[in-house]
């Protein structure tokens, strides 16, 4: 059977250059945060280990799975668009969006556990970084949900212009970036001890 989804053979930038300046800049800022977290940790290792032990690692792991599923949906949405299967693309985007909502719901439970245990940003350096870094990521995720909404509207259009398609690919990459950042934040904050 022949491949039904056309793949571009020539080298091309996914989305547009501007999106990549933003993505590379944003993940570089997070690289500084990753390093800063470990430097702060080195100053009070025992405190960080003890505080980290109070976190529910299952919440973090479940959220990783939600984001990975959402990323696969976005990959499939892009492929469906290329194959001119607009309805399928819309459904994949909705699937990705719902995974994002599920992430937020798990996060609410997670934050609620911490706050109920009086482990808040002012408690110690670990909880401060935990809330700031996961909060910053959550902020990116909420923007990502707005991006996914825009992609859904694009997928509903009968025609997509070259610029709109660049936005579609760039938006997909933004969503993957939200996933990518969590793939480091979860092990760093929850697992590394």
């Amino acid at each position: 059977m022949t491949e039904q989804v056309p793949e571009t053979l020539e080298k091309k930038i996914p989305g547009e250059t501007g999106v990549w300046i933003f993505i590379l800049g944003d993940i570089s800022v997070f690289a500084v945060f990753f390093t800063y977290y470990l430097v702060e940790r080195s100053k009070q290792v025992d405190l960080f280990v003890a505080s980290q032990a109070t976190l529910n690692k299952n919440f973090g792991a479940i959220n990783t799975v939600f984001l990975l599923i959402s990323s696969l949906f976005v990959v499939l949405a892009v492929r469906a668009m290329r194959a001119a299967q607009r309805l399928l693309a819309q459904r994949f985007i909705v699937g990705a969006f719902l995974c994002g909502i599920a992430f937020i719901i798990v996060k609410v439970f997670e934050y609620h556990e911490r706050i109920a245990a009086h482990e808040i940003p002012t408690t110690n350096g670990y909880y401060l970084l935990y809330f700031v870094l996961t909060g910053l990521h959550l902020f990116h995720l909420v923007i990502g949900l707005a991006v996914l909404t825009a992609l859904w509207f694009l997928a509903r259009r009968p025609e997509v212009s070259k610029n709109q398609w660049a936005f579609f690919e760039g938006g997909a990459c933004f969503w993957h970036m939200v996933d990518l950042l969590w793939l480091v934040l979860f092990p760093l904050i929850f697992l590394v001890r």
Partner: protein
Amino acid sequence: MTTLHPLLRTPATAVWAVLIAATVVSWMLGTQHGFNSYTLASVVILLIAFFKVRLVGLYFMELRDAPTVLRGLFEAYCIIVCSVVVAVFLLA
């Protein structure tokens, strides 16, 4: 849903399965005693994390098919940040 099958026929779906498996391995290393040493387990967890980052970049963001400069910047990011993070974890 006969139209679904060709869409799934991409390396990205296999990569996705690897990402899920890697997540399970990290989670086990982080919650149980996979290794005798927490330090060793943590280094492995960090290496797995950046391996996953690279897979997401190359296969999901499609940087595999991007111009050399862009792919190079991303590959450099993975190597440099992974090295710095592991070094700071071990030395700091």
